[in-house]
Protein backbone atom coordinates (compact mmCIF):
# COMPACT_ATOMS: atom_id res chain seq x y z
CA UNK A 1 0.00 0.00 0.00
CA UNK A 2 0.98 3.57 -0.27
CA UNK A 3 1.86 5.11 3.04
CA UNK A 4 0.67 8.51 1.96
CA UNK A 5 -0.83 10.63 4.68
CA UNK A 6 -4.39 11.42 3.72
CA UNK A 7 -6.29 14.70 3.74
CA UNK A 8 -3.31 16.96 3.09
CA UNK A 9 -4.97 18.72 0.18
CA UNK A 10 -8.51 17.30 0.12
CA UNK A 11 -10.80 17.61 3.16
CA UNK A 12 -11.65 14.64 5.36
CA UNK A 13 -15.13 13.32 4.44
CA UNK A 14 -16.42 13.44 8.02
CA UNK A 15 -14.66 16.38 9.65
CA UNK A 16 -14.84 18.34 6.39
CA UNK A 17 -11.45 19.98 6.85
CA UNK A 18 -7.88 19.32 5.76
CA UNK A 19 -5.15 18.38 8.22
CA UNK A 20 -3.50 21.76 7.93
CA UNK A 21 -6.69 23.68 8.57
CA UNK A 22 -7.47 21.68 11.69
CA UNK A 23 -3.84 21.99 12.80
CA UNK A 24 -3.80 25.76 12.37
CA UNK A 25 -7.04 26.19 14.27
CA UNK A 26 -5.72 24.08 17.12
CA UNK A 27 -2.60 26.22 17.15
CA UNK A 28 -4.74 29.35 17.23
CA UNK A 29 -6.77 27.92 20.12
CA UNK A 30 -3.51 27.60 21.98
CA UNK A 31 -2.61 31.17 21.03
CA UNK A 32 -5.92 32.37 22.42
CA UNK A 33 -4.91 30.90 25.76
CA UNK A 34 -1.44 32.48 25.54
CA UNK A 35 -2.80 35.97 25.04
CA UNK A 36 -5.56 35.10 27.49
CA UNK A 37 -2.89 34.56 30.13
CA UNK A 38 -1.37 37.94 29.36
CA UNK A 39 -4.73 39.74 29.38
CA UNK A 40 -5.51 38.00 32.65
CA UNK A 41 -2.26 39.35 34.07
CA UNK A 42 -3.16 42.81 32.78
CA UNK A 43 -6.57 42.74 34.44
CA UNK A 44 -5.24 41.43 37.75
CA UNK A 45 -2.43 43.98 37.88
CA UNK A 46 -4.61 46.88 36.84
CA UNK A 47 -7.44 46.15 39.23
CA UNK A 48 -4.91 45.64 42.03
CA UNK A 49 -3.58 49.20 42.07
CA UNK A 50 -5.17 52.61 42.28
CA UNK A 51 -2.76 54.67 40.18
CA UNK A 52 -2.90 53.02 36.76
CA UNK A 53 -2.30 55.59 33.99
CA UNK A 54 -4.89 56.15 31.26
CA UNK A 55 -3.43 54.81 28.01
CA UNK A 56 -4.33 57.80 25.85
CA UNK A 57 -2.58 60.18 28.21
CA UNK A 58 0.81 58.46 28.02
CA UNK A 59 0.81 56.54 24.74
CA UNK A 60 0.67 57.79 21.18
CA UNK A 61 -2.92 57.20 20.04
CA UNK A 62 -2.54 58.59 16.47
CA UNK A 63 0.38 56.25 15.74
CA UNK A 64 -1.50 53.29 17.19
CA UNK A 65 -4.59 54.20 15.14
CA UNK A 66 -2.39 54.30 12.06
CA UNK A 67 -1.11 50.85 12.97
CA UNK A 68 -4.66 49.58 13.42
CA UNK A 69 -5.51 50.80 9.95
CA UNK A 70 -2.34 49.21 8.54
CA UNK A 71 -3.04 45.84 10.14
CA UNK A 72 -6.72 45.74 9.14
CA UNK A 73 -5.74 46.62 5.58
CA UNK A 74 -3.14 43.88 5.55
CA UNK A 75 -5.80 41.44 6.68
CA UNK A 76 -7.91 42.38 3.68
CA UNK A 77 -5.00 42.04 1.26
CA UNK A 78 -4.20 38.67 2.83
CA UNK A 79 -7.69 37.34 2.29
CA UNK A 80 -7.64 38.79 -1.23
CA UNK A 81 -4.43 36.94 -2.01
CA UNK A 82 -6.18 33.71 -1.03
CA UNK A 83 -9.27 34.61 -3.06
CA UNK A 84 -6.99 35.28 -6.06
CA UNK A 85 -5.71 31.75 -5.84
CA UNK A 86 -9.26 30.45 -5.69
CA UNK A 87 -9.88 32.38 -8.91
CA UNK A 88 -6.64 30.88 -10.34
CA UNK A 89 -5.05 34.30 -10.73
CA UNK A 90 -1.51 33.71 -9.57
CA UNK A 91 -0.09 37.13 -10.49
CA UNK A 92 -2.79 38.82 -8.41
CA UNK A 93 -1.90 36.53 -5.53
CA UNK A 94 1.69 37.74 -5.74
CA UNK A 95 0.58 41.35 -5.80
CA UNK A 96 -1.68 41.03 -2.75
CA UNK A 97 0.81 38.95 -0.84
CA UNK A 98 3.56 41.49 -1.48
CA UNK A 99 1.30 44.27 -0.21
CA UNK A 100 0.48 42.21 2.89
CA UNK A 101 4.14 41.75 3.69
CA UNK A 102 4.94 45.41 3.07
CA UNK A 103 2.09 46.47 5.35
CA UNK A 104 3.35 44.12 8.05
CA UNK A 105 6.80 45.69 7.76
CA UNK A 106 5.21 49.14 7.92
CA UNK A 107 3.45 48.09 11.12
CA UNK A 108 6.78 47.13 12.65
CA UNK A 109 8.41 50.38 11.54
CA UNK A 110 5.67 52.43 13.17
CA UNK A 111 5.99 50.28 16.27
CA UNK A 112 9.75 50.88 16.21
CA UNK A 113 9.19 54.65 16.17
CA UNK A 114 6.81 54.30 19.07
CA UNK A 115 9.31 52.26 21.08
CA UNK A 116 12.19 54.63 20.25
CA UNK A 117 10.10 57.56 21.41
CA UNK A 118 9.39 55.81 24.70
CA UNK A 119 13.05 54.95 25.23
CA UNK A 120 14.00 58.59 24.53
CA UNK A 121 11.76 59.63 27.38
CA UNK A 122 13.26 56.93 29.61
CA UNK A 123 10.15 54.82 29.71
CA UNK A 124 11.20 51.21 30.09
CA UNK A 125 9.54 48.01 31.34
CA UNK A 126 11.16 48.77 34.68
CA UNK A 127 9.48 52.18 34.88
CA UNK A 128 6.08 50.93 35.97
CA UNK A 129 3.83 47.96 35.47
CA UNK A 130 1.86 49.89 32.90
CA UNK A 131 4.93 50.18 30.68
CA UNK A 132 5.96 46.64 31.55
CA UNK A 133 2.69 45.18 30.31
CA UNK A 134 2.70 47.54 27.33
CA UNK A 135 6.17 46.45 26.21
CA UNK A 136 5.68 42.74 26.89
CA UNK A 137 2.32 42.36 25.18
CA UNK A 138 3.10 44.57 22.19
CA UNK A 139 6.55 42.93 22.01
CA UNK A 140 5.08 39.46 21.91
CA UNK A 141 2.53 40.64 19.37
CA UNK A 142 5.41 42.09 17.34
CA UNK A 143 7.13 38.71 17.39
CA UNK A 144 3.95 37.22 15.97
CA UNK A 145 4.00 39.85 13.22
CA UNK A 146 7.59 38.88 12.40
CA UNK A 147 6.55 35.23 12.32
CA UNK A 148 3.76 36.12 9.91
CA UNK A 149 6.17 38.00 7.65
CA UNK A 150 8.46 34.97 7.52
CA UNK A 151 5.63 32.58 6.67
CA UNK A 152 4.15 34.91 4.06
CA UNK A 153 7.52 35.60 2.50
CA UNK A 154 8.10 31.86 2.23
CA UNK A 155 4.74 31.42 0.51
CA UNK A 156 5.44 34.34 -1.81
CA UNK A 157 8.92 33.25 -2.90
CA UNK A 158 10.27 29.69 -2.53
CA UNK A 159 7.00 28.13 -1.39
CA UNK A 160 5.01 29.37 -4.39
CA UNK A 161 6.63 26.76 -6.62
CA UNK A 162 4.00 24.41 -5.27
CA UNK A 163 1.33 26.31 -7.20
CA UNK A 164 2.50 24.49 -10.33
CA UNK A 165 2.66 21.01 -8.81
CA UNK A 166 -0.20 21.00 -6.33
CA UNK A 167 -2.38 24.12 -6.49
CA UNK A 168 -4.97 22.74 -4.04
CA UNK A 169 -2.43 22.19 -1.31
CA UNK A 170 -0.80 25.53 -1.99
CA UNK A 171 -4.15 27.32 -1.70
CA UNK A 172 -4.69 25.46 1.56
CA UNK A 173 -1.35 26.68 2.84
CA UNK A 174 -2.14 30.27 1.96
CA UNK A 175 -5.49 29.92 3.70
CA UNK A 176 -3.75 28.53 6.80
CA UNK A 177 -1.21 31.36 6.79
CA UNK A 178 -4.15 33.73 6.37
CA UNK A 179 -5.93 32.33 9.41
CA UNK A 180 -2.80 32.99 11.45
CA UNK A 181 -2.45 36.48 10.04
CA UNK A 182 -6.07 37.38 10.79
CA UNK A 183 -5.52 36.14 14.32
CA UNK A 184 -2.57 38.51 14.71
CA UNK A 185 -4.88 41.28 13.52
CA UNK A 186 -7.57 40.12 15.91
CA UNK A 187 -5.23 40.30 18.90
CA UNK A 188 -4.30 43.83 17.95
CA UNK A 189 -7.98 44.77 17.76
CA UNK A 190 -8.18 43.99 21.48
CA UNK A 191 -4.74 45.35 22.37
CA UNK A 192 -5.47 48.70 20.84
CA UNK A 193 -8.32 49.75 23.12
CA UNK A 194 -6.97 47.85 26.13
CA UNK A 195 -3.58 49.57 26.12
CA UNK A 196 -4.07 52.84 24.26
CA UNK A 197 -7.63 53.97 24.83
CA UNK A 198 -8.58 52.94 28.36
Amino acid at each position, binding site marked *: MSAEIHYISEPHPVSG*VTNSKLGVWLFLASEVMLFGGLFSAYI*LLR*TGVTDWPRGHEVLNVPLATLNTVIL*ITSSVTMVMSWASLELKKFSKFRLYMTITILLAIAFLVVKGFEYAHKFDHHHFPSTSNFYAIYFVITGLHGLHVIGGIIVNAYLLLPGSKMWKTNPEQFT*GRVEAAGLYWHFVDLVWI*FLFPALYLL
Partner: protein
Amino acid sequence: MSGHSEVEVKKQVTLYLRVFFALMALTVVTVAISYVHMPILLGVAVALFIACIKASLVAAFFMHLSTEKKIIIFILILTVFFFAFLLATPSLHHT
Protein backbone atom coordinates in the same frame (compact mmCIF):
# COMPACT_ATOMS: atom_id res chain seq x y z
CA MET B 1 -13.28 26.57 1.28
CA SER B 2 -11.49 25.32 -1.81
CA GLY B 3 -13.51 24.22 -4.80
CA HIS B 4 -15.77 27.26 -4.73
CA SER B 5 -17.19 28.50 -7.96
CA GLU B 6 -15.90 31.73 -9.43
CA VAL B 7 -19.17 33.52 -8.81
CA GLU B 8 -19.15 32.60 -5.13
CA VAL B 9 -15.59 33.78 -4.65
CA LYS B 10 -16.36 37.07 -6.39
CA LYS B 11 -19.34 37.55 -4.10
CA GLN B 12 -17.07 36.98 -1.17
CA VAL B 13 -14.58 39.54 -2.39
CA THR B 14 -17.30 42.19 -2.30
CA LEU B 15 -18.12 41.03 1.19
CA TYR B 16 -14.47 41.38 2.27
CA LEU B 17 -14.44 44.97 1.08
CA ARG B 18 -17.61 45.74 3.02
CA VAL B 19 -16.12 44.21 6.14
CA PHE B 20 -13.01 46.29 5.58
CA PHE B 21 -15.02 49.51 5.55
CA ALA B 22 -16.98 48.44 8.60
CA LEU B 23 -13.73 47.78 10.47
CA MET B 24 -12.36 51.17 9.49
CA ALA B 25 -15.53 52.90 10.59
CA LEU B 26 -15.49 51.11 13.94
CA THR B 27 -11.84 52.06 14.45
CA VAL B 28 -12.77 55.71 13.99
CA VAL B 29 -15.71 55.32 16.36
CA THR B 30 -13.68 53.68 19.12
CA VAL B 31 -10.94 56.33 18.94
CA ALA B 32 -13.50 59.13 18.90
CA ILE B 33 -15.36 57.75 21.89
CA SER B 34 -12.16 57.49 23.88
CA TYR B 35 -12.00 61.30 23.85
CA VAL B 36 -15.46 61.57 25.40
CA HIS B 37 -15.27 61.72 29.16
CA MET B 38 -17.26 59.03 30.85
CA PRO B 39 -16.97 56.79 33.91
CA ILE B 40 -14.12 54.33 33.54
CA LEU B 41 -16.33 51.25 33.72
CA LEU B 42 -18.63 52.54 31.00
CA GLY B 43 -15.59 53.42 28.89
CA VAL B 44 -14.21 49.92 29.26
CA ALA B 45 -17.58 48.40 28.40
CA VAL B 46 -18.00 50.50 25.26
CA ALA B 47 -14.42 49.96 24.05
CA LEU B 48 -14.62 46.22 24.62
CA PHE B 49 -18.02 46.05 22.96
CA ILE B 50 -16.66 47.71 19.82
CA ALA B 51 -13.54 45.52 19.89
CA CYS B 52 -15.74 42.44 20.15
CA ILE B 53 -17.77 43.51 17.11
CA LYS B 54 -14.57 44.12 15.13
CA ALA B 55 -13.10 40.81 16.22
CA SER B 56 -16.32 38.99 15.31
CA LEU B 57 -16.24 40.55 11.85
CA VAL B 58 -12.66 39.42 11.29
CA ALA B 59 -13.35 35.94 12.63
CA ALA B 60 -16.66 35.44 10.85
CA PHE B 61 -15.67 36.65 7.40
CA PHE B 62 -11.89 36.84 6.97
CA MET B 63 -11.40 33.61 8.89
CA HIS B 64 -14.58 32.10 7.40
CA LEU B 65 -15.93 31.07 10.79
CA SER B 66 -19.48 31.89 9.71
CA THR B 67 -19.39 28.91 7.35
CA GLU B 68 -16.79 26.78 9.13
CA LYS B 69 -17.13 23.08 9.92
CA LYS B 70 -18.49 21.85 13.24
CA ILE B 71 -15.21 20.43 14.49
CA ILE B 72 -13.52 23.84 14.34
CA ILE B 73 -16.44 25.56 16.03
CA PHE B 74 -16.40 22.90 18.73
CA ILE B 75 -12.69 23.42 19.45
CA LEU B 76 -13.20 27.17 19.63
CA ILE B 77 -16.18 26.94 21.98
CA LEU B 78 -14.09 24.77 24.28
CA THR B 79 -11.25 27.25 24.11
CA VAL B 80 -13.47 30.24 24.79
CA PHE B 81 -14.94 28.51 27.82
CA PHE B 82 -11.54 27.98 29.43
CA PHE B 83 -10.43 31.39 28.24
CA ALA B 84 -13.29 32.92 30.21
CA PHE B 85 -12.18 31.11 33.35
CA LEU B 86 -8.59 32.16 32.82
CA LEU B 87 -9.62 35.76 32.38
CA ALA B 88 -12.24 36.04 35.08
CA THR B 89 -11.09 34.02 38.04
CA PRO B 90 -7.68 35.54 38.80
CA SER B 91 -9.22 38.97 38.70
CA LEU B 92 -11.68 37.90 41.38
CA HIS B 93 -8.74 37.33 43.66
CA HIS B 94 -8.85 40.77 45.20
CA THR B 95 -12.34 40.29 46.57
